[in-house]
């Protein structure tokens, strides 16, 4: 390993790929990685249950960020999965001996350095291994402030856990990176793709329609007070817990829009960034309202919470419509010239 400095990031997957690329000399910030992978999304899928709660996601499924970003930028990444845990451990050791920085998909539950109350059975966590001393692996986990060490036994356990989103020992290394990035092209392509996810998904459970669907569900929420509290709490956890950057990735995306606005000198994108910030604040207000409603002794005010979610949906719809209009305007020459 020539040099590696740990950097904390908000989200594990975008943080890992940003660090992997930076180490190869291609500087891509975390929000830029997230945005260029058109990773922002919303999905509420009641039929898919995780620990008894429906699937609610504020971004694309695991591994889409790395794959989407690398495809868009022309980065070559080698992905390897293993049937045999021993073969997986050997492959990791070999890559480390060659001095490579290795990305891994792991479970959260079996990593001993996670705080006790954060240990849930989530199998799509990402981290990097940058070295090894005997049986102790040096880990750069992007959502922690400092690098950590984990024993081979624990690491292998976390890599080869079964169940939903099983990592199957997935490890990845960056093979080659392009000389430069054609920012005007890739930014437009990424935003265009994201507009389609948020506005044009064929199913009413994805994008802006998905947010409305969830609002309707809240409006007529049934069940015991505890069930209702757990359901609402689940929405908030998915929105705020580890690696969302707050407000379900909305602030990370706003940061991406701001960076893009500067790169392309497009004031329209700066306005979109401000609008996205406002939407993020609405999401935070929703979380705050949920917490308040769950604490008070009276019955939960469903209409109020549903209304807040609907205003999130409306804010996002307007913003994506504006971005769609921006995409339809032909590129200005000044934008192409920069970088």
């Amino acid at each position, binding site marked *: 390993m020539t040099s590696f400095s740990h950097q*904390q*990031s*908000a989200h594990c997957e975008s943080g890992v790929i940003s660090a992997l690329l930076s180490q190869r000399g291609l500087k891509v910030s975390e*929000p830029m990685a997230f945005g260029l992978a058109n990773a922002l999304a919303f999905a509420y899928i009641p039929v898919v*249950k995780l*620990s*008894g709660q429906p699937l609610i996601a504020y971004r694309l499924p695991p591994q889409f960020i790395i794959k989407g970003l690398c495809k868009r930028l022309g980065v070559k990444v080698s992905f390897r999965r293993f049937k045999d845990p021993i073969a997986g451990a050997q492959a990791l050791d070999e890559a480390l001996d060659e001095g490579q920085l290795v990305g891994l998909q792991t479970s959260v*539950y*079996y990593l001993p350095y996670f*705080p*006790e*109350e*954060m*240990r*849930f*059975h989530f199998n799509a966590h990402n981290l990097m291994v940058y070295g090894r001393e005997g049986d102790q692996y040096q880990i750069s986990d992007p*959502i*922690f*402030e400092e690098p950590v060490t984990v024993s081979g036994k624990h690491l292998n*356990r976390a890599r080869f*856990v*079964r*169940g*939903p989103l099983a990592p199957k020992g997935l490890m990845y290394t960056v093979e080659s990176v392009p000389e430069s990035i054609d920012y005007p092209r890739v930014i437009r392509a990424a935003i265009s793709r994201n507009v389609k996810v948020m506005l044009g998904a064929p199913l009413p459970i994805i994008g802006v329609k998905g947010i409305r669907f969830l609002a309707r569900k809240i409006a007529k929420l049934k069940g015991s007070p505890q069930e209702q*509290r*757990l359901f609402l*709490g*689940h929405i*908030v*956890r998915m929105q*705020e*817990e*580890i*690696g969302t*950057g*707050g*407000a379900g990735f909305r*602030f*990370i995306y*706003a*940061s991406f829009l*701001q*960076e893009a606005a500067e790169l392309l000198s497009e004031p329209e994108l700066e306005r979109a*960034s*401000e609008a996205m*910030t406002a939407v*993020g*604040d609405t999401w*935070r207000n929703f*979380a*705050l309202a*949920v*917490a308040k409603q*769950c*604490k008070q002794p009276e019955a939960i005010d469903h209409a109020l919470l549903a209304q807040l979610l609907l205003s999130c949906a409306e804010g996002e719809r307007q913003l994506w419509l504006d971005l769609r209009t921006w995409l339809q305007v032909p590129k200005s020459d000044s934008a192409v010239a920069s970088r």
Partner: protein
Amino acid sequence: MRTDEVPQDNSSTYAGHKKLLYARDQDGTYTQVPSTGWEVEAAATKDAVALYQQLADQALEQVRAGEKSPLFYHMYQCRMDPALLAQVTGLFRWRVKWHFRPKPFRRLSQSLLQRYAEALDISVDQLTQTPDTQ
């Protein structure tokens, strides 16, 4: 969210760690700000943790009463439900449920016990006992 609005509530769920958030500074430029936690998020997390604790406590009573096998208790103690335990061990759900009965559980082979113990990240000895008999 402005940088001065980034919550710093010292949540116990973070166990002293900080997480990184993106917020706008005075000039409206996005920067990274470490956060020590947010009460709102902590409340939701604690609720979810408490649910499993409650299920584990109930399960423990049932195990002591001889209605369920220790496996039933350890599953909730490990923050799993029957569906997840079946997936993690690669067994059929009905088989896992069958092993929640005390008698079939006592007759389990060493290799199956090992499989459960590994999934629950405990030893076989721990698996066959409950906290009060340890």
